[in-house]
């Protein structure tokens, strides 16, 4: 997809604009995908508004670590931070999904927990905590979920190595005939 077509598609339809405006946060929409960009401090209020507006379910909470990368498709007036928490909601009536992308700074990786608003985010937030080290304030049981409890580090951060070991072979050190000859 070229930049022009992308920009063209990014023009939200009039209905979508109304739809997304009511949450009072920056938003964007491309294709069927709707994105809002609430600020970290307004996150819970926005979530309540979403709930009351008929977004039935919090499908997914995850995060991305933009260590030194440019954030794709981020509105220019939103200051980019290292972490971005991405939450996806779904509505039965509209048959649509809505994505919220919240910037979380590296210095204070903390954000309000959705647990009381969307209890289904319980494990998802624990996973994000485990993998990225982002704290969710107000979560009832914020502990590691996938890694052992005494694990050091947060594996999905970009500064965490994959940790692979070399694969075994038999003749990998054998000299090639040319060098040998």
């Amino acid at each position, binding site marked *: 997809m070229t930049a022009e077509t992308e920009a063209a598609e990014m023009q939200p339809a009039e209905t979508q604009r109304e739809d997304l405006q009511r949450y009072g946060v920056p938003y964007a929409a491309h294709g069927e995908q709707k994105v809002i960009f609430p600020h970290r401090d307004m996150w819970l209020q926005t979530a309540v508004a979403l709930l009351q507006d008929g977004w039935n379910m919090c499908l997914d909470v995850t995060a991305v670590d933009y260590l030194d990368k440019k954030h794709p498709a981020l509105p220019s007036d939103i200051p980019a931070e290292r972490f971005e928490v991405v939450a996806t909601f779904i509505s039965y009536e509209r048959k649509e999904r809505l994505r919220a992308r919240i910037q979380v700074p590296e210095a204070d990786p903390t954000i309000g927990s959705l647990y009381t608003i969307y209890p289904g985010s319980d494990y998802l937030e624990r996973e994000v905590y485990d993998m990225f080290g982002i704290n969710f304030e107000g979560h009832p049981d914020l502990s590691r979920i996938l890694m052992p409890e005494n694990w050091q580090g947060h594996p999905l951060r970009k500064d965490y190595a994959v940790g692979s070991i070399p694969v*075994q072979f038999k*003749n*990998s050190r054998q000299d*090639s*005939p040319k060098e040998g000859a």
Partner: protein
Amino acid sequence: MGYLGGFPVTLKKWFEGVNTKNYRGGKGGKSDVKAPKPERLHGRHVLNKYEDGMEKCIGCELCAGVCPANCIYVRGAENSPQDPVSPGERYGFVYEINYLRCIHCDLCVEACPTQAITESKLFEFSFTNRDDAIYTKDELLVDDEGKPKQLPWEDWRDGEDEHTSGWMRATAPGGDASYEGKVGWSGELGYGVREPEIGQSVDLKASLRAKQSRISQDQSSQEETPHG
């Protein structure tokens, strides 16, 4: 009598006979049979030769590069002009596959530009030693008749060395329907050029007609035996 329903159902199975193939790892004599293998099966790999006995591998390392598990180790070397190993400039000097890493996705087969590496139908092998699991070029290379080497920890049966290139032929058209049925590979030692695998058939229109007639047959047979 819902309680007793299970009894006739299970007893009926007795008279339906057994499904089991009595495979016993090659130790059961005559009754030891394998389940039939489909052509496309991803088995243990073989390194092919041309019909003139030259190795197909040119040491390009595409297979090693594309392997998600990094289980292939290839190092190419220059062919010596007097005694070339492969027709090209280079040949695979070291070629190893670590079968304790290989996931049999056959991306290597798809990647290989010369069809040097294809897969056999053999999937019955196991190792008592880590060393055995690392196949060297010697072990992977077919013999002068184009047959794969049969190693002691493998369970080969008659005819299993055929169809060593099923997946390669299946993916050969690259998704392009107009290339279906076109031979896009060089001959294999011992088997020559094989018939291409027919997917939706070479002649699209003919296949469409055949398909429609088949479906109408199916429908009529389906009406006779309604499901559900």
